């Protein structure tokens, strides 16, 4: 089922079942980000074919929680929510510029402005773009999923032009709390299950997912550390470049042009090295991070299934007791049948979801690793050329 159709003249038009969501704009204010969520749709249950609303991060979390707590979706992997936007570091620096205008000398101010424009601002921009992308991916996954796209909470999220429920701080604790309870509840349910899990498949899945999730987490942490250090290395070039310029200034003679050229080389290399760090972050770290969250969502699914199994077990026991006492048998039978059906459906669904998860992951990794390699090659080649050119210039000055 496709949302879009390519016309003969190259225009994209919607099929009569489309729901296309994107984040068309984003605004960063003091301590929050406002996303403009833009929807185009041909579905009947919306008032207009095209509209937009402004949402903040907490409202995305609200939406995620609505899916998470809905038993209808128990058998599905709920797309992990986007991470909280965090530009504190970059924003601080830019703010300093605005505030410092009065206190710094004109020279200092200009220098800081230059540095910020050349280095800090692009970083800020990159972080900003990333957070927009993550929020967008969350929505597009929902909008393209056969079940999720029908959900009324999603529709409210997309269309309702007022603020959604108040942003209760408690939600965060809840989300965090949920994750924590994941551990304890799993044990709990394992203990309650008297019948061995009929599907070995799921037990294996749970184990391997747990291990996989752990490794992904570690990989994410390590990659983050590496890219951070890489940025530090790149930034150290700035000071060296500046130092060479100052040296050239106090050393007039045959050396000063030379030193200026070397300083220039360092500055250009800095930009490239910085981009390498960013791309490693984007292609490698983010992929690991995303699948760390996704695998967590998969584990959540398996826990829900176990809950269901426990309920089924309990219903079985209740039925037995009812039969013994010869009381309320019919009700107990009904409950047991329902529990059985629910369990079966969740198991079937879960199996599909897990296979889908595998495929998704495979493609995502493939894409990211290819892009990572291509970018690494590109940047290394550019740096190579840069140095070649610098050397040529310097040889001329010899």
């Amino acid at each position, binding site marked *: 089922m496709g949302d879009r159709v390519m016309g003969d003249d190259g225009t994209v038009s919607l099929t009569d079942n489309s729901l296309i969501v994107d984040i068309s704009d984003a605004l960063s204010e003091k301590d929050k980000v406002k996303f403009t969520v833009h929807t185009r749709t041909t579905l009947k249950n919306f008032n207009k074919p095209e509209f937009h609303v402004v949402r903040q991060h907490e409202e995305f979390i609200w939406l995620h929680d609505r899916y998470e707590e809905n038993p209808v979706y128990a058998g599905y992997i709920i797309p992990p929510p986007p991470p909280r936007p965090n530009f504190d570091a970059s924003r601080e620096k830019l703010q300093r510029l605005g505030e410092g205008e009065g206190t710094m000398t004109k020279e200092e101010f200009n220098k800081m402005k230059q540095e910020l424009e050349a280095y800090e601002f692009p970083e800020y921009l990159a972080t900003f773009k990333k957070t927009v992308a993550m929020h967008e991916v969350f929505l597009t996954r929902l909008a393209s999923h056969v079940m999720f796209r029908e959900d009324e909470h999603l529709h409210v999220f997309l269309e309702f032009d007022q603020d959604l429920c108040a942003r209760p701080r408690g939600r965060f604790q809840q989300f965090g709390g949920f994750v924590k309870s994941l551990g304890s509840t799993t044990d709990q349910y394992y203990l309650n299950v008297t019948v061995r899990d009929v599907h070995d498949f799921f037990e294996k899945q749970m184990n391997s997912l747990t291990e996989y999730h752990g490794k992904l987490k570690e990989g994410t942490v390590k990659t983050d*550390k590496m890219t951070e250090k890489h940025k530090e290395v790149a930034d*150290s070039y700035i000071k*060296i470049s500046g130092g060479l310029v*100052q040296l050239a200034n106090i050393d007039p003679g045959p050396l000063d042009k030379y030193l200026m050229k070397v300083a220039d080389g360092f500055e250009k290399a800095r930009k490239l090295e910085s981009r390498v760090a960013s791309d490693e972050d984007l292609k490698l770290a983010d992929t690991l991070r995303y699948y760390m969250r996704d695998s967590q969502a998969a584990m959540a699914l398996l826990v829900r299934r176990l809950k269901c199994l426990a309920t089924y077990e309990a219903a079985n026991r209740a039925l037995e007791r009812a039969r013994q006492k010869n009381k309320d048998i019919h009700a107990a039978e009904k409950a047991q049948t329902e529990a059985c059906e629910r369990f079966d459906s969740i198991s079937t669904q879960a199996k599909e979801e897990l296979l889908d998860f595998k495929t998704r992951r495979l493609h995502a*990794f*493939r894409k990211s*690793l290819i892009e990572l390699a291509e970018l690494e090659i590109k940047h290394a080649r550019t*740096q190579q050329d840069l*140095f070649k050119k610098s050397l040529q210039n310097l040889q001329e000055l010899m």
Partner: protein
Amino acid sequence: MADSVEPPPLFENVDMKREEAEDDDLFESAVQSQPSANLCLEEDGHDLLNGDSDIGEEIDKLMLNDKSEMENVPINNQSTIATPTMEEVEAEGGDQFIEITITEPQKVGDGMGAYMAYRVLTHTNMPFFKKREFAVMRRFSDFLGLHDKLTEKYLKVGRIIPPAPEKNVIGKAKIKMAQSEQAGNGSDFIERRRAALERYLRRTSQHPVLIVDPDFREFLECDIELPKATNTSALSGAGVMRFINKVGETVNKITYKMEETDPWFENKLVHVEGLENQLRKLHYNVEAMVSYRKELANLTNGVSRSAAMLSVCEDHNLLSRALSQLADTEEKVEAVHMEQANTDFYILCEMLKDYLGLLGSVRDAFHERTKMFQLWQHSQQMLTKKREAKAKLELQGRTDKVDQAGVEVIEWEAKVERSQESFDRISKMIKLEMDRFEKCRIQDFKVTFIKYLENHMEHQAQLVKYWDDFLPEAKAIA
């Protein structure tokens, strides 16, 4: 200051023509040794090296005179070091070359008495060496001893002597304590020292006057164990004395303000100070870059291992393989980062450090000139005093003492003349040395940066290759 000036040892084993030692009295030799340039033009470069051997006698004569500190400085001493001027030596040495390498650091002995010995290998076509290729074993204190000898001989006339590598007591202790030769920390330190010693010898050998110095040549080519330069040990009595003298010197440098007649020196000093400041900052920042890059290498290793572990628990074959290849690639990238950090350090960082030391040597030469000036001023003051004393005696009619006073006046007149000449000479010498120093510095910087960029470029090429090799693996997934 003017403490124990030991006469340089006489070399029986050095194959040179020898001049007869001149038994002149003070004044004659002073007159005789006017512009050493005149002497040089007549004679072959070799003979002048004997000038050193005359000093011994001169000093002995001088020591008999006045005991007061200033006057004890053997003013003559400098004038009889008839070393060849740089112009002559450089004119001769058009296509001469010398290449010194230091290899094979070896641990000699055991326990606390152990030390590292380095093999100093020289290739040269310079005629005053006995062979074209030769090697000797030297230990660190030998290098320090050599530096001390060269400083003693040449600093006074205003030459810029390349400083010897620093001692690093902690690093050395680590070596001694190291059980095996392969101790990680130890080998870094050894390599760093080896490279520093090599640069030291190379710089010294580039100086046209120092290269022909007998002590230097002996250091390079005499395959005997040099007498242990015990007074180079940091903790020895002589070491402590040296430290005290250094402090005294520093105080002198700060407290004595010379009235500068030649603006060239003032400007140069300002320039040197400026250079020192900037180089210090630059060195600090390059050091920071080196340490960040080393950390980056370690963290890259962490990523490599994570990728390897992911590969293990990944059940899809092709993805597992790709992740394993990623782990390999990151390991190779780690090695490149490490190599680059070494480049940053050995090519760039150490050069900047060397120049900070060299600029220190420049200041030392300038300071010697200041001391000469002080000496000259002092002599003038003494002369005035003696003249006044004589005049006073004449007025008093003390004819018996007037003669003696007259003799003293003449003595001090001569001293004033000689100290002024020395001052002029050192001023000229410093200008020459600075000229050569600047040429070398500029060349050094240029060559170093080119080398640095070439290395950097090579490393980027390696990265291209590694990621290029990885790309098909990534494409092969699914």
